[in-house]
Structures are given as structure tokens and as C-alpha cells.
């Protein structure tokens, strides 16, 4: 059987760990897949790259994926990356020192920085505000990339930021801010943070490859879940996400969720409909490749 070549697009988060492991441990090769991971700076360009066949499979966040489907792209989910977890303290909303922001109510009228408007952290945070009975429209969201969060808090341009490690740790260490809430711990557990998607016609033509891809991820998940593999796992991640070693050693790795079910997509559709991010009702059942 001939090998199938797959260029895979990822961004710089640990939720892609299962893909990296499957490449490094040869799980793909075993299934006649030649996967070449390609770093993509902006998550939201992934669907277009898939559409133009520059990528065969890519890892958009659920909000990016669902919006592209909403816009009319015919892509399906082949598998999943990381999952949300109650134990996640790798991201949080951080208040500027001296503001005293704590509860969801305190954010009303404040300027809050998020790394991407409409992206994973933003949608989740708004979900938390709503869950806490606060109208998120009364909060000023401003987009600012991670590395700037600390500077913007210090300079007083923002009152709070929704941020993640390792940037969060640096902000806390410098005393520029404090954790107002680990809001992630209030969100539903076990929801995907990254989806592996491909064009529907590509999947139809490469059924075996798509299945093989998912199976390799399942095998990789098992690898990740074994505590003994921790050191090797971090080494593998470090190969694809180039961060300083001390940062790599401390990074929290979200649990893998290689197989996506309808309920998980439903959760995101619900959250996004709530926040008026979708115009149509995506038929979730047809979006998951079996």
C-alpha cells in the first residue's frame, strides 16, 4: 500500500502534543502516513490553507472551525487535540495590580485584553461571564498578543488580561498583576480545544488515511497518559514548539482527546450561538468523519 503524504498545520500550543508524539514515535508511519507538521503563525488562516490544499489536515480551534463551516467551507473533523479540564490552571484572567478586580461583576466597564477576539480564550471567558450572570457586552475587549500582556498591564493600557502560561507566570512574578479568576476551572470538562479537520472530499478519497490518522492519535494519547513518558513527551513538544527549556519544563499539558463526538461539538455550537457568533445551525452530525 502506498503511503499518503499529509502536511499538517499546527500553532504554538501544547494541545497538539498527540500529533507530535504520533510523528516522533512512528505511529503514523506504521499506518503508511507520512505526516509533515507545519507551524502556522495564525490559527485562523488554517481553514483557508486546508481549502487550497496547502494543508491536508490542520488544527483550528473549535471557534475558528465552526465559523468557517458557518461561512460555507465544507470541512469535517477527523480527530481532536487537547481537552479542557478542571485542573487547568495554565490560563486565567489576570487583573492589574491595584485594581482589585475579583468577581465577574467587577469586569463591567473595564478594558480586558484577550489574545484573539473570537478565539478560544475569549469565547471561554465570555461563557464564564455569562454563566456568572454578567452581560459580556458591558466589558471592553481588546485584542493584544500574549507577549504584550505584561507591558500593557504595567503601562495601564488595560485593566485585566485573559492570558496563559508562560506569560501569566512572568506577569505574576513581576508583580504587575494577580490572578483574578481561574475561570477555566468553572467551564465544562472534556471539551476539545483543537480539532483536526480536513476537506470533506479529501476524506472521502482518503478514507483509510483519515482513519489511520485518528488511530495513530489514539495510540499517541495512550502514550501521553502514561506518567512514565513525561520527560520524553516534553522533549518531543520542545522539538516543535520552540520555547526556552525552563518554560517547557513548567508548561501544563492538556489531556488528549483524539476522538470527537457530537456532544463535544454541540457544546461549542451552543456557546458560540449564545455569543451570536454563528448565523446558521451547523448540523453537527455531518461534521464528524467516521
Amino acid at each position: 500500500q502506498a503511503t499518503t503524504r499529509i502536511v499538517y498545520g499546527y500553532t504554538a500550543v501544547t494541545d497538539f502534543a498527540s500529533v507530535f508524539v504520533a510523528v516522533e514515535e512512528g505511529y503514523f508511519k506504521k499506518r503508511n502516513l507520512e505526516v509533515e507538521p507545519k507551524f502556522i503563525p495564525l490559527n485562523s488562516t488554517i481553514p483557508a490553507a486546508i481549502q487550497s490544499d496547502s494543508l491536508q489536515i490542520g488544527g483550528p480551534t473549535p471557534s475558528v472551525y465552526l465559523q468557517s463551516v458557518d461561512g460555507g467551507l465544507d470541512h469535517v473533523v477527523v480527530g481532536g487535540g487537547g481537552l479542557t479540564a478542571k485542573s487547568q490552571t495554565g490560563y486565567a484572567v489576570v487583573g492589574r495590580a491595584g485594581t482589585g478586580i475579583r468577581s465577574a461583576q467587577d469586569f463591567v466597564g473595564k478594558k480586558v485584553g484577550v489574545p484573539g477576539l473570537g478565539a478560544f480564550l475569549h469565547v471561554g471567558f465570555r461563557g464564564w461571564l455569562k454563566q456568572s450572570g454578567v452581560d459580556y457586552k458591558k466589558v471592553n475587549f481588546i485584542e493584544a498578543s500574549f507577549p504584550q500582556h505584561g507591558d500593557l498591564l504595567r503601562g495601564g493600557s488595560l485593566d485585566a488580561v485573559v492570558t496563559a502560561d508562560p506569560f501569566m507566570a512572568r506577569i505574576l512574578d513581576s508583580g504587575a498583576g494577580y490572578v483574578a479568576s481561574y475561570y477555566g476551572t468553572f467551564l465544562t470538562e472534556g471539551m476539545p480545544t483543537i480539532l483536526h479537520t480536513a476537506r470533506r472530499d479529501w476524506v472521502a478519497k482518503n478514507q483509510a488515511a483519515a482513519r489511520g490518522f485518528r488511530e495513530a492519535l489514539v495510540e499517541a494519547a495512550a502514550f501521553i497518559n502514561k506518567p512514565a513518558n513525561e520527560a520524553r513527551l516534553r522533549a518531543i513538544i520542545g522539538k516543535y514548539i520552540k520555547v526556552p527549556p525552563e518554560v517547557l519544563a513548567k508548561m501544563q499539558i492538556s489531556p488528549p482527546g483524539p476522538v470527537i463526538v457530537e456532544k463535544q461539538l454541540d457544546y461549542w455550537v451552543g456557546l458560540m450561538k449564545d455569543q451570536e457568533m454563528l448565523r446558521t445551525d451547523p448540523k453537527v452530525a455531518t461534521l464528524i468523519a467516521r
Partner: protein
Amino acid sequence: MAAARRGAPHGGAAVSRGRALAESLAVLLALLALWWLAAHARWLSPVFVPTPEGMLASLQQGLVGGELAGFTAATVLRMLLGWGLACAAGIALGALIGISATARAWIQPTLEFVRPLPASAVLPLAISIFGLSPAMVLAVVAFGAMWPVLLATVHGFASVHPRLREVAGALQLSQPAFVFKVGLPNALPDILAGMRLAMTVALIVAVVGEMLASQPGLGQAILLAARAFRASELFAGIALLGAIGFLSNALLAVAERRLLRWQHP
């Protein structure tokens, strides 16, 4: 043809303004028709290229019910302020470089070094140092839009005919008098062309600034529409940019015709 400047030229007899406008419109409409055809025949994916009517609907919706009108005003204001700053800075610096060998030696190399730095890469640095304020974005817009005016001014000064330099020398015109009476008028055609470009660049950098520095305006609207794969809204934003660009340029073209009357008396 431009050959016969004096009197009524031969060949394409003076085309009336009305007819020119009609032709101009016809070309644009032909292009729109092509787009309509391309969209309906599905030569292009509807995810990225909407139908013209879809775009119009989004435009209407955004302008009447949504925030598009306010965004447009914000972008226009940012563009105009940035353009004004850019023109002032470009002409002043250009004149300085144009007449002073000292300025050429000291500051031109620095300018040439920062010129190729993309706003998309400089802006994050500027945000880190100066914070996220509208004034900072404005400064970046002015910075980005300054170059066409600056280069044109420098060239305009360099291209003063030697004979005119000698006239100025014979009359012992002071440096400022040379700048205002010979250099700048001589550079005017170049400066005006540069200002037209600068206007466009100002608009584009304003939009990029809004995208990168999260300021309210068409840039943000376009960015969010693109991220949400809402092609019709994206194109509505682009159409508004086109309209802004067209109007500002039409105004400039009128000013240019008046100021350059001596070229085609």
C-alpha cells in the same frame, strides 16, 4: 495626445467632462458585471467571494442597523489625521534633506533604515513601549504614510533645473526663500503625486493599525469578518474603503488641477 499643448490639440478632440465620467463609470460597471458573473457561476468559492448583491445587503445592514457607519467615521478620521501628519513631516524632512547636505549626511541613512520596517512588525514594539493608545496608532499611520511624500519632495528639490538654481543664486535668495519660492513649487507635481499615494497608504496603515492595535474602525470590522468567514461583510468593508479612497482622491485631484494650472495653461 499630450503632444500639442498650445491651442486645441489635434486628434482626440477635448473630451467633455461628462463623457469622461460616463466612460469611467462604464468601465467600473463592466468590472462589477464580471464579478457578478464570477460569483454566480461559482468560478470563485462563495466562502471568500460573495455575490455583489450579498455584499450590498451586508453593507446596508451594517450601515443602517450596525456599527459600520461609526467605524467608517473612525477610520476616516484616523486616515485624515495620519495623512496630515505624514504630509507635514514628509515635506518638512524632504525639504531639509533636499537643501541641506548636513541633513542628508546625518538623518537620511536613519530614515532609509527604518523605511523598510513593516508596520505589522513595528507596531507590537510600539505598543510595548508606548502603550495601546489612539495617538500611538496615529503616529504609526503617519510614519507609514510619510515615505511617498518624503521621497517625492527630495526628488523635487533635486530636479530643480540648474538654470533656476543659478537664478536663485544670482538673486541671492535666502535658504527659506529658495525652499518656498523655487524648491517646493518645483517639487509640487511630485509632491502632489506623493500625497495621493500617501493618502492611500494612510488609509491602509490606519486599517492595519486597527487590526493590530485593536482600535475601533473598519480595520477591526474587516479582520473580524475575515476570521468569521463572512465574505459579504468583508467585502462590504472593502467597498467602504474603496469609497473612502475614491472620494479622498477625487478631492485631491481637483486640488491638484487647480495647483498645477501653470503646467497646462
